[in-house]
Every structure is written in C-alpha cells, then in structure tokens.
C-alpha cells in the first residue's frame, strides 16, 4: 500500500503572510487534489492536478496557488493568510479517470494569528 504525507501537520502564520503546504504520495497516482475542510462545511476543492505540471482550479482557488513539479508531490501556497482561513487542508490522490477512489493524507491544520 501507499501513503500520503502532508507537511507540516500544524502551521501557524501571521495575517498577510505567504504560507506553503506540502504533500507527497507514493501511490504513483496521476491525479492529486487539495481540499479545504471547515467545520460544518464539508470539503471544498481548491486545486487539482491531472498530471505533472498540470493545474486545474477548483471551487475555492482564489487566494491560493498550487504547484506540481513532480508526479509524487503537490504543493499549495496561501498567498496572503487571513484569519478566516483557519481550517484543515487535506491532500488526496487517485488514479486518473472517473469515479476513482481518493486516498487522503491526515491534513495540515492552519492557524492564522
């Protein structure tokens, strides 16, 4: 089996700061995703990537950038952290194609002071 590793597990930043979250997977999956989880609001898709160097915007991409330089890694940058962005960010990966199972990391919890 494989694993998705998200770093750091906890990230504390100042308002207005640029912050980067990292995700590594060893499933050899083509597609990777970043979701934001807010309490009571479920998961919302920020960015996804179908293959290396591909980026697709999700429903919540404003205020974020993403980068997929390698098949195994997918980074998310909060361009200017805001207090209302305190949430858990989940990375996932899947085989390409429809209706494939997503495999999730355990998340990065962001706190903005």
């Amino acid at each position: 089996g494989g694993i998705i590793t998200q770093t750091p597990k906890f990230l504390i930043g100042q308002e207005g700061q640029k912050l980067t979250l990292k995700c590594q997977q060893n499933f050899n999956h083509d597609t990777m995703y970043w979701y934001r989880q807010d309490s009571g609001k479920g998961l919302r898709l920020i960015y996804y990537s179908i293959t290396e160097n591909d980026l697709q915007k999700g429903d919540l991409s404003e205020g974020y950038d993403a980068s997929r330089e390698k098949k195994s890694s997918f980074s998310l940058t909060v361009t200017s952290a805001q207090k209302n962005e305190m949430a858990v960010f989940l990375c996932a990966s899947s085989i390409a194609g429809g209706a494939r199972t997503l495999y999730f990391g355990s998340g990065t919890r962001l706190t903005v002071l």
Partner: protein
Amino acid sequence: AQSVTQPDARVTVSEGASLQLRCKYSSSVTPYLFWYVQYPRQGLQLLLKYYSGDPVVQGVNGFEAEFSKSNSSFHLRKASVHWSDSAVYFCAVSMATGGNNKLTFGQGTVLSVIP
C-alpha cells in the same frame, strides 16, 4: 452542477443500535456516489461506492448503502453500531466525465456512539 446534502449534522445512537445516515444528491445524470469516513485527526477513508447495478452496495466494517434514483438518495446503514464507529461521515458525488475525478462532498454527519 452537482450537489450533495446531508441533512443531519449530528447523530447520536447507542452501541448495538441500528444506524441510518442520510444523503441526498442533485445531478442532471446518475452520478457516481461515495461514502467516506473520517476518524479523529485522520484523513478520509472510503467506506463504499456505487457505480451502477444492484442499488444496495456493501462496504467495509458492516456498512451498506442504498441508491434510490427516484428519491435522489444514497443513505448509509449499519445494522449494529460499535463505539469505534464514532467519526464524521461524508457523502460525495462525482460526475466522472472526461479525465478528471472531481468529488463534491456533503457537509458531513458527526456520529457519536454511546457505549
């Protein structure tokens, strides 16, 4: 556009009791449907998924779900819950068109099992 509604934010049941968690979806075509579970401080894990065929699908740990096209629903059931089933449960839908696999999640239902 697709959407998912889980009408119950929190459900509390006693250990050994039966369980139903509700999920309603909105979609222009029959979508692919999923239930995921999130245990404390962990990511989401797949419980089961439905593509087509028998509307009752079996998942892990004794969970099953029933698809109803007429009701646009995909409710999750378990005959007898255990305290370890306490977690957050998410229903999700995918149109599975093209080469992507975008899932739309419901808001989640927090399940508390009382010993």
